């Protein structure tokens, strides 16, 4: 036991945080391999898919290789945490942090709250929705209903994900309620371009992180992870589309 076990622990903790909060596969693999190598282990190998990490290395020549894995269940988006872990791993590799300090820092990152409070994220969704409804051809008067509808869909997606195990159901429900609010607001006379308002209300739901990471993973040769992330992005888009299709079929 001793050092090898501790290093294995902090490597996997770092990898788990990064993968969970939306880092690309190559970044996870590279970080873990660098950290293990800097602790003077040889024969380091890391294999990462979008739902799990395997790490193995050799402590000394005589002993057998250590090999462990972690399973990642949640895939959230918080790029601040990815950045923070990146910083810790950089300091660890350059020798500024001991194993113990790195462990403390990583545990602190794992349990730290969101960088921005939840209400600010909802407001930001509204601002993004209003902005995009204008950019896609709406008028000034359409920004207010788009703001309200986008805030609504953001609240619904966050609250439903807390209770529903099926992630895509939350996005379906969010698209449905965002679209319904938009149609209702246009019906009572707020705003005139229904299409642009609905597009604005959907923009906060766009799966930006899986989409970008899928491209990056495929290009850096992590084919398994890339294809599965691409499937995730596609399913998210499809559930948004079907949610909005349902509300349009019912109310328009």
């Amino acid at each position: 036991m001793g050092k090898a076990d501790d290093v294995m622990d902090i490597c996997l903790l770092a990898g788990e945080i990064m993968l969970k909060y939306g880092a690309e596969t190559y970044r996870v693999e590279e970080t873990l391999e660098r950290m293990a190598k800097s602790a003077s282990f040889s024969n380091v190998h890391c294999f990462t898919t979008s739902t799990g990490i395997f790490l193995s290395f050799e402590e000394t020549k005589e002993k057998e290789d250590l090999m462990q894995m972690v399973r990642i269940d949640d895939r959230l988006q918080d790029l601040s945490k990815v950045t923070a872990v990146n910083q810790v791993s950089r300091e660890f590799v350059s020798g500024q942090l001991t194993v113990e300090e790195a462990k403390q820092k990583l545990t602190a990152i794992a349990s730290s709250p969101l960088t921005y409070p939840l209400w600010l994220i909802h407001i930001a969704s509204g601002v993004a929705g209003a902005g995009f409804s204008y950019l896609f051809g709406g008028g000034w008067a359409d920004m207010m209903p788009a703001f309200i509808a986008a805030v609504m869909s953001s609240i619904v997606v966050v609250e439903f994900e807390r209770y529903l195990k099926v992630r895509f159901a939350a996005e379906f429900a969010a698209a449905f309620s965002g679209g319904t609010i938009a149609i209702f607001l246009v019906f009572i006379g707020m705003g005139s371009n229904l299409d642009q308002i609905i597009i604005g209300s959907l923009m906060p739901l766009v799966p930006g992180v899986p989409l970008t990471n899928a491209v990056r993973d495929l290009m850096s040769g992590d084919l398994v992870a890339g294809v599965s992330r691409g499937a995730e992005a596609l399913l998210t888009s499809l559930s948004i589309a079907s949610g909005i299709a349902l509300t349009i079929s019912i109310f328009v």
Partner: protein
Amino acid sequence: MDIVTQLLITYFATVAFGIIFSIPKRALLIGGAIGMLAWGVFQGVLNLGTSYVFATGIASFAAAALSHITAKIIRIPVTALSIPGILPLVPGSRAYFTMLSFVEGDYLQGLEYGVETMLRAGAIAAGLVFALAIFSYGKGIGHRYEPNR
């Protein structure tokens, strides 16, 4: 004047997206500037009379390249800048009209919009890939032959 308003709105919308993705505070305003640049390039190239797909590709490349450069300077993962940066180019309106046409039973129109949506998404991916290819120069992994040692 119109383009100035659009750029300002893009800036705020991109910063808002940065908050949605919780990118670090020191990168938030820079991310907004990258999104603004992407929209500016997109409109500029479009003004030259090119197709939407081509303009999207060029704009995505510009945003991704700038993300790579700034990410190196302020020591931050590239994704934290490139994800909000390319978001103004996402063909949300085409995707919506694709769905709308299918709902209304106008399948041919829907396919037309759908193809354009896919091509624009592909153009965003292509821009990201080109920027990645340029900025990973020297980190080659060798795909075909072993290098001569």
